[in-house]
Structures are given as structure tokens and as C-alpha cells.
């Protein structure tokens, strides 16, 4: 039987992997993908919580409505984000995180 715990463990693993990726990877595109993975982890947790939170015997769908918002927002973020990353590539011919270290101190 799959319990809420299973959902949460998977979601937590996803989240951790995403975070680790964000920290460890140098390619900004991949970093960005890891970020999307973290959002998915959150979505999974939301869905899980929602499924196991029964109101009148039915799952509570408010949380699931947030999932839709998250997906939409993520799409918007990707749109803007990729544009910026492209601009970065154009100006530096690189999408390495180490190409943006001018601002410091």
C-alpha cells in the first residue's frame, strides 16, 4: 500500500537532488532544469498531501489548484529565464556559472 510517507520521501528526494544539482552543476541550463525539478518535488508533495487530506471522504483539491499555478508560473519563469540565459550566452559565449563573477565583495 502506498502511503503519504512514500509520496513525501520521493518528493523529498527529488527536492534534494534538485538542490544538489543547483549547487553542484556549472551549466546554467542544467541548473535551471534542476530548479524545475525542485518545483516538481513541491508539486508532488502538494498532490500527495492533497490526496491524503480527505474532506467529506473526498480529497481536498485546493492544494491541487496550486499545482496548476505552479506549473504555469514555472513556464513563465522558463520563458523569461531562457531569454536571459540566451542573452548571457550572446554576450559571453558561455553559459557557465563562472562567467558571471564580476559583481562581488
Amino acid at each position, binding site marked *: 500500500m502506498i502511503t503519504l510517507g512514500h509520496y513525501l520521501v520521493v518528493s523529498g528526494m527529488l527536492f534534494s537532488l534538485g538542490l544538489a544539482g543547483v549547487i553542484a552543476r556549472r551549466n546554467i541550463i542544467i541548473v535551471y532544469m534542476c*530548479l524545475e525539478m525542485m518545483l516538481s518535488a513541491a508539486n508532488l508533495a502538494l498532490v500527495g498531501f492533497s490526496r491524503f487530506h480527505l474532506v467529506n471522504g473526498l480529497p481536498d483539491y485546493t492544494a491541487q489548484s496550486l499545482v496548476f499555478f505552479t506549473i504555469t508560473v514555472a513556464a513563465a519563469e522558463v520563458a523569461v529565464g531562457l531569454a536571459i540565459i540566451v542573452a548571457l550566452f550572446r554576450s559571453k559565449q558561455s553559459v557557465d556559472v563562472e562567467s558571471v563573477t564580476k559583481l562581488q565583495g
Partner: protein
Amino acid sequence: MSVFTIEAGLALLGLALLLLEALKPEISRRTLGLTAIAGTTLALVLFIFAPHDSASQPAFIQPWHQLDSLAIFYKGFALVITILVLWLTLECAPYLTRFTVDGKLAEMFSLPLIVCAGMMWMASARDLVTVFVALELVTVSFYVLVAFARKSAFSLEAGVKYLILGALSTGVLVYGIAWIYGATGTMSFDGIAKALANPATSKTTALFGAAVLLCGLGFKVAAAPFHMWVPDVYQGAPTPVTAFLSVGSKAAGFVVLTRALDAFLVEGSIIGSEIQALLLVVGSLTALLGSLPAMFQTSVKRLLAYSSISHAGYLLLALACRESARFDLSSGGIVAFYLATYLPMTVLGFLGLGLMRANGLGEDIKDFTGLAKRNPLLALLMTLSFASLAGLPLTAGFLGKLFVFLGLADHGYWGALSCAVIAAAAGFYYYFKTILAMYTTEGTDVPALTFSVPAKAVAGALALAILILGVYPKPLQSVLTGKSQAHKVDSK
């Protein structure tokens, strides 16, 4: 006309301007800018005269949208800062356009309107869904704004950093929301408060959720250790955007934080004391981590960024002081008060920077050398702004600090108070360093600086606001107290 209609109208105006610029590229930036300013000003006027009770809102929106005193205050706040930013953009346009791809500024005038609408929604949010959506509306728009001067390597770098770190914080925020929902079974602040006051709720789950959620929000308000993006992004972004970020975005973050904490720290909350302790720790750390590195900065813009971190620390400490029954301002009220005083001094500071930039000067402290000789008025106004940021009495900045100190002392948080005092002391150093540069006259034979009449007028008005708030804060307080009682979450 209901407040919600005004907000929606503002967003629509933003979209319209965006389309207009795309469809009719020949339209001048001045027209665009003035239209945006006029639109926002109209919104402000309408907002002032609109009915300020929730009942006047359209019925469908009421479950997600509330209109208490805090919301009204922050909406007004958002409108004012948007107007100022739009105007500042217009003032800085000549040099900004040098860094944009097509020499145009269209989005710089339309996006702020959308940001403003987002901030206004955020102020009214009753549940986490609304918060999330409004917050992302603001954040995503800011990604564009920060990176807007794409030809400038700094702006682009700032954009990338903001993008990655902002998206990371979004992920953390949503994850936190998920867990809070898991612990309490609801998304609305009222429901969360009710659930947390119920001992049956799982404490560990709630703590976990609240911690992650606060980390996400902490990023938005630049709380340590989530503040690293601030100096880089503030320094890299175009000056008007920096002003917008440091005042508008931060205020929006704090209104959400206030809402969330009202729920988390509700009377009888199972996680209340832990969250409060967390706030004290984070607040103290933020004040210190903002102030200490600031002492070594040579760029005024970056210095102001650190200063804004430090101020965020004070605000967090104010939030930690719940239930200060002895004075009329609740902690949310103190935060609002602080932000209201923070607005004119910060905007004035960035305004000065922008004006100097427009005159072809840099943003380093050494560029300020001899300002008193080159333009005594600007030097005086900037002095006032920095004095207020440093928290010298008889300026607005002092009162905010005083309230924070009062709150901390009232609760006996002596450790946090000491940190705040140390941070303020370090503040004397870096603000005075800049002031000293302005009045130093050695080896400056540079010509006088001149500014437009509206620039003078706006700067003068901001300076006057600093002074008036500093010595006559009564009207502001009555705005906040009259209604801040109402926003308290009814936990019974």
C-alpha cells in the same frame, strides 16, 4: 469603483502599454513614461477615494482578497513607490538607453505597473495560493527589469544571479507551502492560524513547513543567510530598478511575512516560540551581516544594498516582537511604519545616485567627492537621506529604529538588541563616510552639476517627508493604528 477594479485596471494598463510599444515602435519613451505615470497617479487618486471596506469588493474575489488597514497601507505604498520609480526611470532614461538593445525602454514603463498590481494583490492575499501567484508575478517581472540593461555586463550578470537564486527560492517557497498545507490541511491564513492553535496538529510537520516557507520568504526580504543575492543584484540592476527592488519588492515581502507570521504566531500557536526565536536569530544575523561588510564598500550603490539588508534585519526583529501591548503599534504596524520611513530615505538616496549617473558620474564614493561644492542642494538632501538611514534623530529613520529598540527591550531580547546596536553603530561609519566625501573639497575643480526642476521638486518633497515623519509621525501612526487592530487574525 472598488479597489480590486483599480488593481486590475493597473495591470491591464501595463499590458496595454506593452502592446502599444510593440505595435507602434515609433511612440516616444516620454509619452510612454508619462502615460504610465499618469495612469498610476490616477490609480492612486482613485484608490484614495475608493471605499476601503472588504464588502465593496466583488463577491467572487472576497475569499482570497481582504482589505484591512495593512493592505490599504501597502497598496498606497506600492502606488507611491511605483510612481517614483517610473519618474526616476524617465529621469535616467538618457543614460539607461545606452545599455538597452534597441535603445528603447518600453518594458521599463509597463512592467512596473504589473509589478505594482502584483504587490497590491499580495498585500490583500488571504491565502498562500494568492500569495504565491502575486509573488511570482512580481518576481518574474523583476527578472526582466533587473536584466533590462542587457548591454551592460553588470545588469546581465545581476539578472542571471537574480534569476537562478529567485527561482531557487521559489522552489523552496512552494515546498514550504506544501508542507504547511500538509500540516494544517488548509491554504488560508485564517485556517492555518486556527489549525496551529489546535494542539492536535503535528508540531514537527508544522515546524518543518514553517521553516521552509520562511526560508522562501526570507529570500524575498533579504534575510540572512538568504541575502547574498542582494548586493550583486542591487549593484548590477539599473538604478530605478534597484530602488524599486529595495523598497517595493522588500515591502511586498514584508507584508506577506507579516501575514504569515500573524498566522504562525497566533495566540496559543504550537510553533510560536520556535518561530519567534528563529526570527530573533535571523534578524540579528541579518542586521549584522548587512552592516559589517558595508563598512568596506567603495560603491555607494552596493553600500545602499548592504544597508537595505541591515534594515531588513531591524524589520525582522520588529516582527519578532509580538504582542507589544504597551504601545499602539503591533509588530506589523511597526514594520509598516518602518517601511514608510524607509521609503523616502532610500528613494532619495537612489534618486541622488541616478541623478549623478545621468550627469555622467559613477556610483563610487569617490564620485561623491566635492558634491557639496558642485551642487549644495543635492548634497544637503543626500546628507539628510544618509543621516536618516543611519538613524539620526529628528529624521524619519530614527523613529523606526526607536520602535524596534522599544519592542526588543520591552520583551527583554537583550541579545538581539545588542546586535541591533552594533549594527547601527557600524552604520554610522559607512553612512558618514559617504557624507564626508560629499563635503570634501580637496582637488575638485569639476564643474557644477545641474538638475531639472522636477528632480529638485521630487527630491525636496522626499527630504521634507523625511523631516516631517521624523518630527511629526502622528498622522502616519494614526493611519496604522486606526486600522491595524482590524487586521489581527481572529483566532477564536
